């Protein structure tokens, strides 16, 4: 009993010194400059069912440049500066297989958070995740509407997914240990909300153009972080 009391006392003491809950947002834009690469079309000839689903040719998603000259599918996360443990959300991140493509192509997830993988196609897909820090998995989803839930034990930026049946299918997940991450959207914008005040190193990752770092100080009013990738 005595021990518990001392624990209680210590807990009460800690409560008095718990950090202030001030927080802000980081927002920014991922611009693209230089020569735009040629975007190849995906050849789905190997699976006639896939081919039939796309009357129009489909572009490869390796590089997606938005109409306003920004870059889509860039993963942004806080690389260092956070030193608290964050609760792992129980709401799953959903990864869908639609028309023999992954939706979304790039996404973020917290380590330990459930990842729900859904097959929306009436044909066999298999999802082969290739993490290095967590165990790999490779499961088949032969039936439309099949779902499965997986998770990654440890942070890793990025984890690649591929489909062994359809060699053009792949996607990437940024596995991090905090809730502060984002993926640039159709306008190249992103926002990470509710970051505690402090100074952080944020990193952006692109499938083809690699990573960039920036140091950002977040106050109550938030912070801006714009990045530019240059095509070669």
């Amino acid at each position, binding site marked *: 009993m005595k021990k518990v009391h001392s624990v209680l006392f210590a807990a*009460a003491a800690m409560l008095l010194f718990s950090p202030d809950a001030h927080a802000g947002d980081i927002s920014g834009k991922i611009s693209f400059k230089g020569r735009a690469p040629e975007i190849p079309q995906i050849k789905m000839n190997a699976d006639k069912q896939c081919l039939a689903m796309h009357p129009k040719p489909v572009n490869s998603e390796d590089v997606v440049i938005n109409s306003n000259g920004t870059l889509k599918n860039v993963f942004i996360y806080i690389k260092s500066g956070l030193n608290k443990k964050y609760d792992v959300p129980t709401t799953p991140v959903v990864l869908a297989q639609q028309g023999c493509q992954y939706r979304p192509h790039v996404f973020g997830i917290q380590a330990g958070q459930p990842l729900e993988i859904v097959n929306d196609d009436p044909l066999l897909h298999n999802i082969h995740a290739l993490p290095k820090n967590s165990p790999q998995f490779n499961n*088949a989803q032969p039936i439309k509407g099949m779902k499965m839930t997986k998770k990654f034990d440890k942070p890793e930026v990025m984890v690649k997914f591929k489909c062994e049946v359809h060699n053009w299918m792949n996607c990437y997940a940024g596995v991090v240990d905090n809730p502060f991450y984002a993926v640039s959207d159709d306008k190249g914008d992103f926002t990470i909300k509710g970051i505690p005040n402090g100074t952080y190193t944020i990193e952006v990752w692109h499938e083809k153009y690699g990573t960039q770092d920036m140091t950002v100080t977040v106050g109550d009013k938030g912070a801006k972080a714009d990045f530019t990738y240059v095509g070669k």
Partner: protein
Amino acid sequence: MFQKRAETPIENRDYSTFYLVFSGLLLLATLWAVVDEVFVRRPWKGYQSEYDRLSVEKLRAQYNDAMSAVDSSTAADLRSRLAEARQKLDSKEYHDAVRRLDGLQMDLADATRAWRFARSNSDALYYQYSVTLHDGHPSADLKKKLDDLDVEIAADAKKMDDINGSIDSANAMIGGFKDTADSLDAALTALYADATKLETKIASVEQSPLEIKQVLLNDYDKSNFGEVKARVDRCQTCHLGATDKNMADAPQPFTTHSHPELLKIHNPEKYGCTPCHRGQGHALTVGEAHGEADPFWETPILRGMDVYASCSACHTSRQALKGAAYFSKARQTFLESGCYGCHDIDGYKNLPKIGPQLNSIPAKLQPEWVYRWIRDPKNYNPHTRMPNFKLSEKEAGAVTAYLFSIGKESTFSLDRPKGFYAGGSASLGKEHVENFGCKACHVIGDDVRVRNARGSSYDIAPELTHAAGKLNPDWIFDWIKNPRHYNPTTKMPSLRLSDQEARDIVAYLMTMRDDRPKEAFNVDINSEENIALGKTVIRQYGCFGCHDIKGMETEGKVSVDLSDFGRKLVEQMDFGDTKVKHTWADWVGNKLRNSRVFQTDRIVQRMPVFALSDTEISMIRSVLLSFRADNPQAKYRVEVTDSQTDLDAGEKLTIRYGCINCHQLEERGGYFAAILDDPTKGPPLLTIEGGKVQEPWLQSFLKSPSPIRPWLKVRMPTFSLTEDEINTVTKYFLALSGQSLEMRDYASFTPDPHLLADGTKLFNTFQCIKCHQLGGAQIDPKSVAPNLELARNRLKPEWVISWLRNPEAIQPGTMMPGYFPDGQSPLPDVLKGDATLQMRAIRDHLFTLGKKKN
């Protein structure tokens, strides 16, 4: 009679100063000795206190983390509710209830006593009454008394029941007050469980006494006189953090062991540290314990990778060891370097010679080339395994003369007429060489990817970059069509080339010209004197250790036995005129770097000069270090079972034939993948082969391979293995899967007819043929998975089930997806969703696939 002296002489000198000074000094010296004994000579006490301090520091940090991890709002809530509940306990009703319960308990005790007394009175009375019964005069008086007592007992029992009832209700009432508080208290304790646990740990570390921590290995060693004796191992008196995960970043001697996975199977609390690391286990000061400061300790600590040399003390039988990739590679290097050609070594006896036979070389080579080669093999090919014997011009010429003289007596002749090789296309030949897998063993031109993947300084097959300058094209054709024709014991396999393919390859190889300047050659290879001298030189240098040479069949090994070389003492080593440091490791290192280094004007050395890399020198040194005759007693060694022997033989064989150049076997091999764009398009993993394929299929496949994966360009060669060798491989693969060779009738496997319909349905639903193919005729070169019609005669039925259950577990990284995540079927309506039954159904369907056509 005795005359008493009038006066006893007295010495008046005063010695008290001497007494004072020397007793004082002696006291100081004694104190000094005590301090020396207790502290100075026991530095481990300091280490242990420091470790405790460090450990508490880390635990405290964790404790603080655990405290901050507790959700403070939950804790505050619980605490306030607990306080509230406790407050209620202070109310009058609660105290009244408690008091009432105490009164009831007393009443119950009284009632129980009254009941028990009445019962014993009744028993005694009944005895008296039964006596009267026996006498035939039952006493009515006693009977009445008994009846009265029965009434009394019943009344007492009822009273007890009543009181018990009251107690229950009182308890329920008290419980109503108390349970809330108790459960809140428990919840709070649970909330801080981690922190409390850490606090207990901190206390236990703080209270732990300073003590010598020793492991006693009974009957471990043998003394020099052959007596079995115990080993005392006290390393963990200072190395306290070996198994403590917290100490990963702590400095030595506290740091966590760098290979915790090895410690899991070699528990240091049971085995101590010295069986692997050596050193002087019972010593407790740094230099003595490590054995490095004690010139008389014969087994000082093994530093760096040398520690792996200890593995073979207990693991006596195997070449490769899991978790010791370095040492497996070291043993591979040792084996491939052919040390056993000249040295007798336990465990390396009766192995095939590593070099080719030299009895028919006129068909293949020119004397000029042979002479140049013998003079300095590395000059012709820096990556050859043939070492430099540093022969003089005369000696090299004489050896050439002898080899050509026995070549003339050879019965070998080409199968085809001269010039048959002509008419190939060099560009096609280049493609063949790239596609068929020649480059898995041979380096050609600038393509050194496989060599780099192997990571050895030597190749296991001749580099062909200058083949045209060396080889006779007629001979090349004959050789690549059927290598065993020229050399019946060669390990070069046949790739089942058609005549045209062989012609193309010859054409390609003949473009590999050698335009480098050559030494002049003017040796009379027919001179009797040269031939006789050549024979003597070959005898002296022991060429027959690696090559079959006619006339030398009965020769023994030319050099010393190395079976106990790890224990050779520095005093027994000759350092010549060198300034090399007088240690075992320096002698061996220098000898391996330049085997003639200790040669003097008077002492001739014949060991040839190798060109090993620094890593390889260290590796071979580790292997030599492991050659010790003082293994621990049997109960500490890994038992040498049949399967261990099979594994060892198989490992040696697969190294010899270069199987590991293409295939991965356990932790090594698969180097060919380096030249493939997609490693999944390479030769398959063989670690699992024994459990996977039927033995008759494996044996017939090894005899005459047929393509399983037609989309692969690389060919599985025909090695023309002997029956013995095929058995060795079979047993090796089986042992890798934990099986042994037994007769099994695979043909008698019959699919369950009740499952076939569902099997077909599952087969179609799972869309297996999106990747796999069926039938030999319509082989789709784009398919990425094997022909399922082969399964019936190839795969073990039980293996198919485990493969379907979890392919990733059997072959990590495989393209085959798992259809039954966590052993659950995705189709609950087939076979009632029983996953195992579904797998059996698919398997049974597969095993009908080939049959339908027949």
